[in-house]
């Protein structure tokens, strides 16, 4: 298990995941504050944070519950926000599919945006053994997850979020653009990103985050077509 390559992947995962603490931390504090302000007690707040581990959908559920929406609507709307994660799951299957079922289940529980994007980019870039891939993924995600639990709790107990005058809203765009940017040196990825951005913005009127899903499928198809075209060109 602990070959030099696996150990190296572990340290790389820790290092690459570190910037995401700036994304996760403020978001977790804010969720803790918002959940208790909305009337959830500390046990309910922490149960949601630990069982769902998907901030945007947790905020969606919270907002809809405050608006007294029917329970089924709350559940389906919040789940719709997470549909993109089925694509993450499919995307990692060719890389992690040989892991044991329990390991795959654990990876699925931790399949958050940041760790997914880091890992998918890394696996495409480098030949790695299965154990090195797993070491990278879990090393990247564990600090994020611990930060998510811990700072939700701090937010819930203290009621203190980070002042809005700090532009931490932009930590998320900055980190995700930074991971994707090197991939855009290749034409199919550049085309996929172009389609993704334009279609998502054009379809921002669609409910249930559907615009993003439609855009993702069109962008994947566009990337795949450009790749196939490039192969034919030799």
């Amino acid at each position: 298990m602990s070959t030099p390559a696996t150990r190296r992947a572990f340290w790389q995962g820790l290092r690459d995941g570190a910037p995401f603490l700036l994304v996760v931390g403020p978001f977790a504090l804010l969720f803790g504050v918002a959940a208790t302000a909305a009337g959830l007690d500390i046990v309910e707040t922490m149960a949601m944070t630990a069982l769902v581990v998907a901030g945007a959908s947790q905020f969606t559920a919270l907002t809809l519950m405050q608006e007294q929406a029917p329970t089924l609507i709350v559940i389906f709307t919040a789940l719709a926000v997470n549909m993109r994660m089925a694509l993450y799951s499919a995307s990692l299957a060719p890389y992690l599919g040989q892991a044991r079922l329990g390991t795959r289940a654990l990876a699925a529980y931790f399949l958050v945006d940041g760790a997914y994007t880091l890992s998918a980019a890394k696996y495409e870039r480098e030949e790695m053994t299965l154990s090195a891939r797993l070491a990278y993924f879990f090393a990247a995600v564990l600090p994020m997850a611990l930060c998510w639990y811990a700072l939700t709790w701090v937010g819930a107990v203290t009621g203190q979020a980070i002042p809005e005058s700090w532009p931490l809203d932009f930590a998320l765009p900055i980190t995700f653009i930074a991971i994707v940017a090197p991939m855009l040196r290749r034409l199919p990825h550049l085309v996929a990103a172009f389609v993704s951005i334009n279609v998502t913005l054009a379809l921002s009127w669609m409910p249930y985050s559907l615009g993003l899903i439609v855009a993702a499928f069109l962008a994947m198809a566009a990337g795949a077509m450009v790749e196939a075209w490039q192969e034919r060109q030799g």
Partner: protein
Amino acid sequence: MSDPVTIWIVIAALGLGTFAIRFSFLGLIGDRELPRWALRMLRYVPTAVMPGLVAPLVVWPAATGGEPDPARLIAAAVVLAVGAATRQLLPAVAAGAATLGLLLAVLPSA
């Protein structure tokens, strides 16, 4: 706010449902071979989802009430340029954060 029973139903359903979504393909496909066209499409998931996820936050930031903000647009462009040029995560993040901090301090805000 909802009553405790409703809150716990939402927590349980959202937790189970989210896990099911995340486990779906990882769990069911496992190490079975996927068709070539599927593998080809799946290679583009990161560049098909992340730019779309981030684009509204860059173009219509909530911090400015949804109005496009020059500081944030320029910072995003700097991250993109530094990331593509260096292929390194940390320099790109640092350059973007520094640009945003500087521009927000210098530019007149609305």
